[in-house]
């Protein structure tokens, strides 16, 4: 708690007794920034003084986030300068800005989902050094508790709610004791009580003379917290005011401005029968919505971004699950099915044009007809001439600027891509047309065309629902506008009152409180936390091992003999080591198909040296060198050229196989008893090598949790882009993980060669599957970032046991394949379902 009181350590140039209020902490001078086609920032000047809360308000796309990206060193301005605490920022460097004392809390937190809260805070504040990770949970908990969000420092970030994640991001920023703190839309995810808690903390900070930049849409909140307000519109500053001396109405007027220079098609006002009827629709982030849209009507959805509008419109398109009812032309539509919605005549124009709107590598023509393939085909066979004809007709009618209908759509401008999407939409003759931000990122000329296309569709009898964050466009186009806030419709404007000012007022003054789903869930018990942890699979596997032993043992008494236990544990040692090897690379979200052939390859190398009369030291040395080399080649090809790890390791696997069979076409070279006796040594019935294997796994587990290497490996596997944003060298971490994997195959090779006793390449090959089986059973997310080596120990023992089952029950050799295959797929399905349930909860 005491960490926030910043003692002034800069030279005191202010009169004694006064802390540094009034000194300029952040100064932006003449900032210009142009993106292709848009002038995002126009000669922006901004001064934020120490000890003040300076609010930055403006609509979506006004340039607030761009400006803060410049201030935090994430974006290089075309001209102008950034000065933090009196020092000029020399270039676009987030690290330099951070060192100068600037911290930013983004709407999209740079958190690593598979790591714990404490680990995230440790990485974010550079506390991954000696002992830092050990102390991290206690330290983190102390910083989290004042927020009363019920966040356990040891829980995984992916298990946190959106608002909890946001608090973690704030705590991370505050732990850096910033001189300038930027909060980007901090209250979007918080309820009113949490907002008040945030405000109290902000006031504490400013009392300690931190400068706070507060970006928000919500004018009432801004009036409450800010000392000064700067309004940004279309990339230019429209004025800076003392918060006490400016009215809410004045701010709103400045925010929206008046630039109605766009031409809108006339509202015809001729409405037909109701087409779309929505009753009591609820889903993710929205609830209880009723709506009727008539033929020929355009209904707008407005509201501050992230208040459930997007989820609602996607639910109408069947792309998100929902409850309630949707009726089109009197017939009920199955909810949550995109195909059912499409059949009923719903056509959806998504806002994420590149991700969801167009098929980037496909041609303009292909994109235009993709939804109406039946119209260009006969007996299910497509006729290219029809595609070309329709495409050319649409290109002309919608004025799409493209060299030809066979141009890949990726090379068109945003506005023309959107026209392609609309052409496709109109061809489908929609009964219900859903458009999400149809003019986002579109130039002025294309906007006008898009407006008339939408109005034209309505005039043809479609019911149109349009989501937009542009008030001008809603006013100009819509017959009726619904304003949503925190998941509900809070206001509806119709007829002459559909004006930008009216819409903005309703949206900005809304104080609706978000209904939080699953409130109080965070207080889950210790047991559930443990279940979510990395170690729960180990315990479950342990139980299965015991149960299986009892079943098999009851039909064959010999099962419980020390001899069998010795055998079982010896095989388990091999499984644990090879599983640990695969686990390392999987944790970094890689994959290594070459472990089996590498194992064989090393055994073959050994069979030339580790024999009676051979030079054992050279042999062992060669095995280590070969393993490291293979790991390096794998890692180098994958990281340096960004190649698919599966294909690279598959090719290396086959190359290794070719090499080893060239070296030893038939088995040969008896492994010397000097080594095998050593490997077979035991304490009681427990082979020493098994103890060693378990020791290796435990050491890796410790390193994974407590060393910088381990945390970075999991960080990269969890979310590579966020890890890089936090300053981790992802490629190096990957490369090292491949080398570590290969190096671990070396001890496995020593065990295997002792077991088979001769230089034979065949037995090792199947260990690729075995290693994957062990990893999957251990419950590791095959997508990287999480898993435990304790789980590997349990899974290794289970696999060894399962492989011995056919012998004991007198089953055919086929079971030797079936069992590993079935348990691999079974475990993968089971864990995938568990993850789905967890996420859905």
């Amino acid at each position, binding site marked *: 708690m005491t960490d926030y009181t910043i003692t002034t350590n800069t030279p005191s140039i202010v009169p004694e007794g006064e802390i540094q209020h009034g000194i300029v902490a952040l100064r932006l001078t003449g900032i210009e920034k142009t993106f292709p086609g848009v002038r995002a920032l126009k000669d922006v000047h901004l001064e934020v003084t120490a000890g003040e809360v300076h609010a930055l308000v403006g609509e979506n796309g006004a340039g607030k986030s761009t400006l803060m990206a410049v201030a935090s060193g994430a974006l290089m301005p075309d001209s102008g300068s950034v000065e933090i605490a009196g020092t000029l920022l020399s270039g676009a460097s987030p690290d330099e800005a951070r060192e100068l004392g600037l911290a930013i809390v983004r709407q999209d937190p740079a958190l690593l989902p598979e790591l714990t809260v404490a680990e995230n805070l440790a990485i974010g504040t550079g506390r991954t050094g000696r002992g830092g990770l050990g102390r991290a949970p206690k330290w983190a908990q102390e910083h989290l508790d004042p927020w009363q969000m019920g966040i356990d420092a040891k829980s995984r970030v992916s298990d946190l709610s959106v608002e909890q994640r946001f608090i973690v991001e704030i705590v991370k920023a505050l732990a850096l004791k910033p001189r300038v703190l930027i909060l980007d839309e901090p209250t979007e995810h918080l309820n009113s009580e949490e907002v008040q808690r945030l405000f109290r903390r902000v006031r504490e900070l400013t009392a300690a003379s931190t400068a706070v930049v507060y970006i928000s849409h919500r004018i009432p909140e801004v009036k409450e917290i800010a000392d000064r307000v700067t309004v940004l519109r279309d990339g230019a500053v429209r004025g800076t005011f003392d918060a006490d001396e400016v009215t809410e109405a004045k701010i709103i007027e400045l925010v929206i401005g008046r630039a109605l220079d766009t031409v809108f098609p006339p509202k015809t006002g001729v409405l037909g029968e109701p087409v779309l009827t929505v009753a009591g629709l609820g889903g993710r982030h929205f609830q209880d919505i009723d709506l009727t849209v008539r033929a020929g009507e355009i209904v707008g959805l407005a509201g501050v971004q992230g208040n459930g509008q997007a989820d609602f419109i996607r639910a109408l398109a069947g792309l998100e699950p929902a409850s309630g009812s949707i009726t089109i032309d009197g017939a009920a539509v199955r909810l949550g099915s995109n195909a059912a919605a499409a059949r009923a005549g719903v056509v*959806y124009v998504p806002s994420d044009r590149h991700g969801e709107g167009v098929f980037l590598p496909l041609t303009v023509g292909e994109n235009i007809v993709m939804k109406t393939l039946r119209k260009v085909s006969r007996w299910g066979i497509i006729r290219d001439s029809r595609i070309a004809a329709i495409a050319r007709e649409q290109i002309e009618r919608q004025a799409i600027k493209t060299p030809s209908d066979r141009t890949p759509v990726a090379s068109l401008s945003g506005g023309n891509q959107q026209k392609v999407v609309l052409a496709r939409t109109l061809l489908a003759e929609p009964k219900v047309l859903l458009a999400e931000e149809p003019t986002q990122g579109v130039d002025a000329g294309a906007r006008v065309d898009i407006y008339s296309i939408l109005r034209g569709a309505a005039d043809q009898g479609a019911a149109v629902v349009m989501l937009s964050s542009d008030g001008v466009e809603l006013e100009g186009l819509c017959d009726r506008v619904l304003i949503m806030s925190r998941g509900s419709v809070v206001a509806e404007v119709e007829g002459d009152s559909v004006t930008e000012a009216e819409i903005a007022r309703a949206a900005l003054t809304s104080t609706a409180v978000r209904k939080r789903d699953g409130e109080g869930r965070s207080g889950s018990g210790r047991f559930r936390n443990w279940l979510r942890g990395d170690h729960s699979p180990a315990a479950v596997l342990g139980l299965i091992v015991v149960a299986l032993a009892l079943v098999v043992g009851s039909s064959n008494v010999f099962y419980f003999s020390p001899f069998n236990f010795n055998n079982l544990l010896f095989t388990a040692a091999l499984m644990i080591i090879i599983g640990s090897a695969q686990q390392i690379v999987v944790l970094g979200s890689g994959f290594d198909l070459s472990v089996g052939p590498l194992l064989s390859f090393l055994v073959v190398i050994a069979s030339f040296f580790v024999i009676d009369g051979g030079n054992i030291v050279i042999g062992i040395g060669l095995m280590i060198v070969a393993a490291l080399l293979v790991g390096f080649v794998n890692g180098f090809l994958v990281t340096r050229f*960004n190649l698919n790890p599966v294909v*690279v390791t*598959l090719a*290396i696997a086959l190359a290794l196989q070719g090499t080893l069979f060239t070296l030893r076409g038939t088995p040969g070279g008896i492994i010397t008893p000097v080594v095998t006796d050593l490997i077979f040594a035991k304490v009681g019935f427990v082979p020493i090598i098994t103890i060693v294997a378990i020791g290796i796994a435990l050491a890796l587990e410790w390193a994974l949790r407590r060393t910088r290497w381990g945390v970075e490996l999991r960080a990269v596997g969890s979310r590579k882009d966020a890890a890089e944003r936090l300053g981790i060298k992802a490629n190096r971490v990957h490369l090292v993980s491949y080398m570590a994997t290969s190096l671990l195959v070396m001890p496995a090779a020593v065990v295997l060669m002792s077991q088979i006793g001769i230089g034979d390449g065949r037995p090792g090959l199947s260990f690729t599957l075995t290693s994957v089986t062990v990893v999957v059973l251990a419950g590791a997310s095959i997508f990287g970032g999480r898993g435990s080596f304790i789980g590997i120990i349990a899974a290794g023992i289970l696999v060894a046991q399962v492989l011995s089952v056919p012998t004991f029950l007198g089953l055919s050799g*086929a079971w030797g394949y*079936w069992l590993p295959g079935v348990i691999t797929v079974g475990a993968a399905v089971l864990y995938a*379902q568990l993850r789905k349930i967890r996420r859905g909860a």
Partner: protein
Amino acid sequence: MSTTTPTVDPRWRRILGGGSSAIWYATILLFVVSPFIAGGSLSYSAIVGMLPFAAVLAIAAVGQTLVVQQRGLDLSVPAMMAFGAALASGLPQWFGWAPGLAIAAAIVLPGVAGLVNGIVVTRFGVMPLVATLGMNAILLGTVFAISNGTPAGSPQGLADFAKGKIGIVPTAFVVAVVVIVILGFLAQRSIVGRRLTAVGVSEPAAAAIGVRVTLYQTMAYAAAGATYGIASVLYTGYVTTPPLFFGDSYLLPTVAAVVLGGTALTGGRSALISTGIAALFLTQLGQLFRSVGWPEPLQLIAQAAVLLLVILLRAIVPGIVARRRRSAAVANVTA
């Protein structure tokens, strides 16, 4: 962003389904230089001996292409092939099935196994790699169970068919051409094919226009299974008594053929016909190595090297070309 330039596809390329034109030239070049490296490698008997193997690989690789198009990778190819062969030869020999029925089973049942792969991947969210690796083990167990550890012989009729010739062309090759042309045509010209491409390019975009994404993805896996079945039936007939686990040597070549054919491992457009040509290339290359006396293990190394080389070139060349163009553009401006 994307480096695609607004070029107009040549007509033949559209008809053949796009893909890499390099593999066509490479294949022609390989056949031209073959006689200089090993005399007689272009003789009638050498070609006729090579084509059935190329046919088997081509059909299997087309299946792999369908899976790669959906951003998967099918590691169950070895067991699928072994499974099909065990059914085609084992069912008549050990269980007294009519050969026709056994052959149908050898195509349908791998298709069912592919369907299961698809369901496990799409419905249950298991990574394709893990699902198909697991399926590989399960099918190998089944092969073991059917054959009881001993390979069976092909039914006489099938052997006669697969070893026969139509005119001077081996029947197996004709079968491959027919299968690949039909599949290539469907992939390129049918509604189903276009939707498969759409899903492969972008699942969210396909979902947004109302395509049933999981259904199409599952279908791709099932169709792949069926092609492995067809390939294995041909192989069974041609070699008469296929070794139990002969499929192991087909995994890497199918992946290599897909990559060489120009289908991106990141999914999207498939180039089925080019995959077939790549299979021909790889088989002839192997033949060439064999005729100059390289042992089998060295062939594995050569295949791996070709595959790595091609994916490396794919990764490096676009960057170099772009840099050239940029510097050329700069030169134009400054000139």
